[in-house]
């Protein structure tokens, strides 16, 4: 346990000093900070559009950070040979991998908290203090965080056996696929008239590709009239879905990494 924590803390220490990540984060923060300024110029009715734009910036920035952070995770350790000293200590490979994963989660938490903080300040300045509004606004970043934890697990899983560049496209691709097409495939499954082959493909994709779209809850904010029944239960459900998926990915990653030559 101690080992996992040490490795996670070290991973966080490295991440917050990685220049690439800091640049991406800075771009995100700058966009969040200046976007409301643009909003002032537009009509009052567009506030909701602005809000979803801000959330979109956070989401996109976080996704890029999650991928860039994790695709190098294992390859860098091997290339710099830092992994050898660690594995020559009483550290099991699964502990190492979990440490790396929790380090990624911690790094995402820190960076996303920073962006969300800037978002809250921007919202406050524009709308004045509004506790209910802030609370509604914060639901989205929390769900994004779960989404990014899932994306990080994908990136780390692939980083146990593919190169960073390939991994970048694999993880990024799965994220886009899972964010956009998953709902489409689910519709297809629900449609009794869909051809059998299409249904089979849809089932496979639905199982393999995590459904990132579950976590994109900014839509209800844009369309407040669409009320999800029993919101809380829905959140618990999609969180459990995320945790289960992450667990499966980590187990698979550990199995591969255990046999891997480093």
């Amino acid at each position: 346990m101690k080992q996992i924590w040490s490795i996670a803390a070290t991973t966080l220490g490295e991440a917050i000093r990685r220049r690439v990540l800091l640049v991406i984060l800075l771009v995100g923060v700058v966009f969040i900070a200046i976007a409301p300024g643009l909003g002032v110029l537009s009509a009052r009715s567009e506030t909701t559009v602005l809000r979803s734009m801000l959330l979109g910036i956070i989401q996109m920035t976080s996704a890029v950070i999650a991928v860039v952070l994790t695709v190098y995770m294992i390859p860098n350790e091997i290339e710099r040979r830092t992994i050898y000293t660690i594995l020559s200590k009483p550290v099991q490979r699964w502990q190492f991998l979990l440490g790396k994963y929790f380090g990624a989660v911690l790094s995402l938490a820190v960076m996303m908290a920073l962006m969300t903080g800037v978002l809250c300040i921007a919202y406050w300045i524009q709308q004045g203090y509004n506790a209910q509004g802030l609370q509604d606004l914060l639901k989205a970043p929390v769900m994004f965080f779960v989404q990014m934890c899932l994306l990080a697990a994908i990136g780390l899983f692939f980083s146990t056996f593919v190169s960073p560049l390939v991994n970048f496209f694999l993880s990024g691709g799965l994220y886009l696929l899972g964010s956009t097409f998953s709902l489409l495939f689910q519709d297809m499954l629900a449609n009794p008239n869909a051809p059998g082959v299409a249904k089979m493909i849809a089932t496979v994709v639905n199982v393999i590709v995590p459904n990132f779209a579950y976590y994109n809850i900014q839509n209800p904010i844009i369309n407040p009239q669409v009320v999800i029944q029993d919101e809380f239960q829905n959140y618990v459900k999609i969180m459990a879905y995320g945790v289960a998926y992450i667990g499966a990915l980590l187990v698979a990653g550990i199995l591969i990494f255990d046999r891997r030559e480093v």
Partner: protein
Amino acid sequence: MAAAIETKSLTKTYKLRNGKVNVVDKLDLYVEEGEIFGFLGPNGAGKTTTIKMLLGIIYPTSGEAKVLGKEAGDINTHRIISYLPEKPYYYEYMTGMEILKFYGSLFGINDPAKFQSLLERVNLAGDAGKPISAYSKGMQQRIGLAQSLLNDPRLLFLDEPTGGLDPIAHIEIRDLILQFREEGKTVFISSHALSDVERICDRVAIINKGVIARQGKLDELLRGGRIEVIADQVPADFPAKLKDLKVTSSYNNARLILDIDEEEDVNGVLDSLRSAKAHIVSVIPRRKKLEDLFLETVKNVSEKRTTTMSGAAQ
């Protein structure tokens, strides 16, 4: 004495584009506890690969490896051994002290006094607060040795510990290693720096192209050279009597200098010198130089290799 390291037919095969290569080939190593063991070989001989197998970082294709009585890679053994990789890198943002804290935490060690005394031991106490990125190569190697001592290991694996260091850093590292012997630690050093090995090691194995060519006590390997005999007042007809022996001689002014192969009957030669009323000045066994042994061994293996390979091709 118990075995610290024992391998039987340890083999590592890598698949390359043009077929398979046994990077380590049926290696039988034996290292006793308390020994400083030199693992010698040219670049690419398979030294690092062997060490990584002994640590369980990579897995053998076949054969066995035992470290301190347990299967290589055993996690409990890792509590009592340590490893200094070849050209190691550390998390560069960390300071010397943070490095020790981090690696210490992997053993569950959190003892500032211990970290401080290790830093002093490797002469880095004054630089403990500097980030590793500001350390010279020699300093990085010394912090590496400090981290390898955190758990007070019984067995240390040092992969080319003096590689790429300037002479002063070189001597510092060598002196630290010599202290390990006094503490009764077993040290397994891979190196191609022969002068270090000659000064530090009790026993050596010479490996080339994955095959062990020689293994034994350094004294014994270097012995078995030639014996130099010098005598005065030697009759002029004496040198001719030696023509059947493996001897090189020079005769000048009644002084005879002989360089006799150790396998020859040296005593017989001495007897006949005495009976010829010659005066024997000195009899000195000449140790082989490690460098010669190394070159000779490496060359032999290369020749053997070439012949078996051309044999296999037919």
